[in-house]
């Protein structure tokens, strides 16, 4: 048999999530009636979630304009109750919601824009760790180089997108008119710099391939083979060294490790 406490809690959640007013018969009425008292909680519930969407996705809101952003907010709150203890994560399912919503899915760049903003947030509060330095690389004996593997900073993510959403994001951020949405395969690297600010920059196809290679546990020997096969570089080793030094300077690399260790970072997106 259900306890009365459990029943009241079920009724209250039904009132908050679905507007069901069965609970009102169990609410004390006086100067305010039961519906008025209940509506304070119902209004507060939606306001709180609305504020999170607003705060987490300011550029998306700007892109959509007031009417469509309102439609997104109302639809998302109705469709996706929070399964999280912290509101920080409430909008994590937003890109999937937008991809599946009958209206918003007609404009797939919208879900991609949301996914980019989630990606920025994820890098912002990813785990801390020290980054490796160029000195660390220089101290590694040449004989160990072929089996050298990389462990990346936890904030580093590859954002692969079939739309020009980062260009759209940047234009809106600078308060310029955004470019028209275009289908174009793009790969962006998102990370948190040493001042704890989130940065991103586009990755050339070869850089993207090599990042994926190392993220999946590949070593320098495999990376050099990829460079030799896919570029016109006269020296694959020099090309790789240039790339590694650049990544080290950007703070992307957490650790340089010797062969056969399983990767500890999974490519994201």
């Amino acid at each position, binding site marked *: 048999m259900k306890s009365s*406490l459990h029943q009241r809690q079920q009724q209250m959640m039904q009132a908050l999530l679905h507007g069901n007013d069965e609970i009102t018969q169990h609410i004390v009425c006086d100067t305010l009636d039961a519906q008025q008292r209940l509506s304070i909680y119902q209004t507060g519930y939606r306001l709180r979630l609305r504020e999170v969407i607003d705060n987490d996705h300011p550029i998306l809101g700007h892109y959509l304009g007031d009417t469509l952003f309102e439609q997104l907010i109302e639809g998302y709150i109705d469709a996706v109750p929070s399964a*999280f203890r912290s509101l920080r994560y409430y909008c994590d399912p937003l890109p999937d919601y937008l991809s599946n919503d009958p209206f918003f899915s007609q404009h797939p760049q919208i879900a991609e824009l949301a996914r980019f903003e989630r990606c920025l947030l994820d890098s912002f*509060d990813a785990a801390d760790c020290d980054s490796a330095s160029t000195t660390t690389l220089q101290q590694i004996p040449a004989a160990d180089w072929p089996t050298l593997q990389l462990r990346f900073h936890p904030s580093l993510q590859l954002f692969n997108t079939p739309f020009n959403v980062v260009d759209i994001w940047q234009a809106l951020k600078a308060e310029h008119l955004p470019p028209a949405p275009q289908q174009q395969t793009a790969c962006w690297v998102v990370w948190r710099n040493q001042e704890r600010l989130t940065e991103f920059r586009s990755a050339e196809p070869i850089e993207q391939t090599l990042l994926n290679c190392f993220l999946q546990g590949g070593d320098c020997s495999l990376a050099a083979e990829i460079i030799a096969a896919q570029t016109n570089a006269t020296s694959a080793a020099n090309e790789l060294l240039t790339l590694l030094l650049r990544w080290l300077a950007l703070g992307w690399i957490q650790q340089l490790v010797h062969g056969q260790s399983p990767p500890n970072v999974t490519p994201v997106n």
Partner: protein
Amino acid sequence: MSNHYLGFGLGLRTPHFQDVLETQPDVDWFEIISENFMVAGGKPKYYLHAIRERYPMVMHGVSMSIGSTEPLDKDYLKQLKQLANEVQPAWISDHLCWTGLDGINSHDLLPLPYTEEAINHVAERIIQVQDILGRQLLLENVSSYLSYTDSAMSEWTFYNAVVERADCLMLLDINNIYVSSRNHHFDPETYLNAINPARVRQFHLAGHSDVGTHVIDTHDHDVCDSVWALYRQALHRFGPISTMIERDDNIPPLQQLVDELNIARQLAATTLQDRSVREVAYS
């Protein structure tokens, strides 16, 4: 004065992180919202640790959902304990309420019916949480806008009973007592006078929004005169209790909150002096 007395504190909020480090304001301690720091790293954790090196802290949670009839969230408690290991807070608090059911969080502090069933249920869960955390929990009275026809006792009777049965402590929110007294038409002094002084470890002060027909606990205004008056009553009854001001919206510059905290300091100084004079006179 008990050795748990921390003095006068503020809620640590993101817009003030940098100011706190740069100006090292005259604040005795900070209270953090635990959930805001349940992240892996980055700026929130950096500021948390840097400020913790300079100030005592307490942890205040908003989603333990101690009154819910769904099972305790062990993952949440594990994260809370991990954060406590990092922060080494003077104490950990949450609210005497429930926040969700069946895996769905309302992110609101929902009131409980004041029944024997609820006392037993909540007390048993507090005991489990205290076992997991290895310390006594402080529970705060919430502002409420509705009460249930099921309730068989006053809020203060319920609060005392839960705390006694679970052997936990109280974070008495003076503003919440005021807000609920307006919304449910009771005398806030009756509430204060019923509370067991031995259980009270901390006071909260905050502002609210008075919409005429009722009052909402918005934390977006200065502390109002009526709440200051009730704080004075609380000081008379409970003596020196660690006090902090919460501000969560319409957040002013840090110095403005420090100035407001100084009102609490002055009020406590004069009230407690009167109290000790009275105690001497009657001893």
